[in-house]
């Protein structure tokens, strides 16, 4: 037993015959921001899907090896919905459920049985504040979530992910559809959230990983090439896999 928040050993992910990730092993420590970088089709998103068992949602997706969250294999949970409630996910493109802003954030608490309006109000306001969205939407909480701008919707999904008080927050290239100013605001939010939870940040932007991540993994073509403290990726004389250095310095990908 290690004290890792997420422990991955020999993880291989397949879609039918296609191997998306092969034999990856690494650990994510509590209260760190763990960056995952790498070009497209490297297995980054597939890894996130295994963490909260969203593989059950994708036809033909299978994985072997061990993935432990909080010291327990993700397949050992009898109630996988309970596992998902501990893990918040932010998708690349914001998905506002076809509900009001308020109901979007209150969705998970309601599923968990929170009924009292006063309690829900506290949760909704708290989550929207922490996602740096409250001031912009407090006057239109009953408007449809899908009417917000792209950047606002992405912060709405972050507020929604926070509403279930997750111990792990997964972000999958959250800044694809977000302008640079909003990106910086969300990054500031993430730095604060680190005190309360563990964050796994999949990103295309090497500089984003550099700004945020304590440690970073480099995935390439289904292989976990390197896991190292993030600054090592940017030190000239660090002992780094040459492929990782090439990627970080923009020579491919």
């Amino acid at each position, binding site marked *: 037993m290690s004290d890792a928040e997420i422990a991955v050993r020999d993880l291989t992910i397949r879609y039918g015959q296609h191997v998306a990730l092969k034999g990856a092993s690494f650990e994510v420590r509590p209260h760190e921001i763990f960056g995952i970088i790498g070009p497209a089709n490297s297995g980054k998103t597939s890894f996130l899907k295994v963490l*909260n068992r*969203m593989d059950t*949602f994708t*036809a033909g997706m299978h994985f072997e090896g061990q993935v432990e969250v909080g010291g327990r294999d993700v397949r050992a949970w009898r109630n996988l*919905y*309970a596992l*998902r*409630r501990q*893990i*918040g*996910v932010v*998708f690349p*493109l914001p*998905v506002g*459920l*076809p*509900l009001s802003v308020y109901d979007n954030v209150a*969705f*998970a608490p309601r*599923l*968990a049985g929170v009924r009292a309006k006063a309690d829900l109000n506290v949760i909704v306001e708290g989550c929207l504040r922490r996602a740096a969205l409250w001031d912009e939407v407090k006057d239109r909480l009953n408007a449809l979530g899908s009417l917000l701008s792209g950047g606002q919707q992405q912060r709405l*999904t972050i507020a*929604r*992910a926070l509403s*279930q008080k997750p111990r792990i927050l997964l972000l999958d290239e959250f800044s694809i559809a977000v302008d640079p100013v909003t990106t910086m605001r969300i990054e500031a939010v993430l730095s604060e959230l680190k005190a309360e939870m563990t964050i796994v940040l999949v990103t295309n932007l090497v500089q984003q990983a550099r700004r945020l991540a304590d440690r970073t993994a480099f995935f390439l073509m289904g292989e976990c090439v390197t896991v190292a403290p993030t600054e090592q990726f940017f030190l000239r004389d660090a002992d780094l896999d040459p492929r990782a250095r090439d990627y970080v310095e923009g020579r491919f990908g």
Partner: protein
Amino acid sequence: MSAPPPHPDTAALDRRDLAWYVDKLVAVLVFVGGVSAVVFIVGIFAFVTHEGWGFVSEHFSLRGFFGSIRWAPTSTSNPTYGALALIAGTASVTGLAMLVAVPFSLGAAIYIAEFATGRTREVLKVLVEMLAAIPSVVWGFIGLSVMNPLIIDVFNVPIGLCVLNSGLILGLMAAPIMTTIAEDALKAVPDTYREAAEALGATRWQVTRRVVLPAARQGLLAAVLLGVGRGFGETMAVLMASGHAINLPTSPFDSVRALTATIAAELGETAVGSTHYQALFALGIFLFVVTFVINLSADLIVRGIRKT
């Protein structure tokens, strides 16, 4: 900067080639196809109205038509044309059919769209569509020869051709088409909603109830309305299973007679242009208007979905 060189073969720009003529020809053909739908619906409505108009203008009264249960067009001394019992017959059968069909078809649609996976889903979809293709006379035959003795035995009633029998048959007939349309409505809800809700720890049923069903509710309503329209217009199965007796039903075991069945059974027996003949066409006008309104509302509702 110099002027562009003259086109080497400017005549080619004016020459109409084969592709040009084919295009024009196809445009005319598909125009005819598209317009024919309008021509037919207007033509049929004009025909039915024309044939029934003599009755509407001379014998029709609101109370006599909608307020009387006496449909006795062949009486020699005092022919009467009260459609209330026929309307009640159609309405009671359709109502019971919807009580059967709505839960069945919504359940089936939710199972196929949300819970079933892979092969099960594909097989079920094909089977449901095949069920929709069973001719109505076959359903009527089942009502007559299977349901009839069953109802007599189980409920100990003298006759099993009644509202219950034809309602069940009609419900089973309408369910497949309603299932198909309802399933289309559920499938139109983007998967990203389901994924996002599941990532929040919602169970499959919670996702269905709180996200998918609300998002699809217009399509589901349209499915139900189309089922109602189907029930209203169905003739053969109802004729065979309802008992065809003029009756204001007070229990599910009463025999009734439907509007459509009345027209089908009597039109061949009447003299063209007689009052009886015209009265049957007046029933036709009424049916036409009701089904038209139902289908139109279903269509408008479906259009509403596409806009949002």
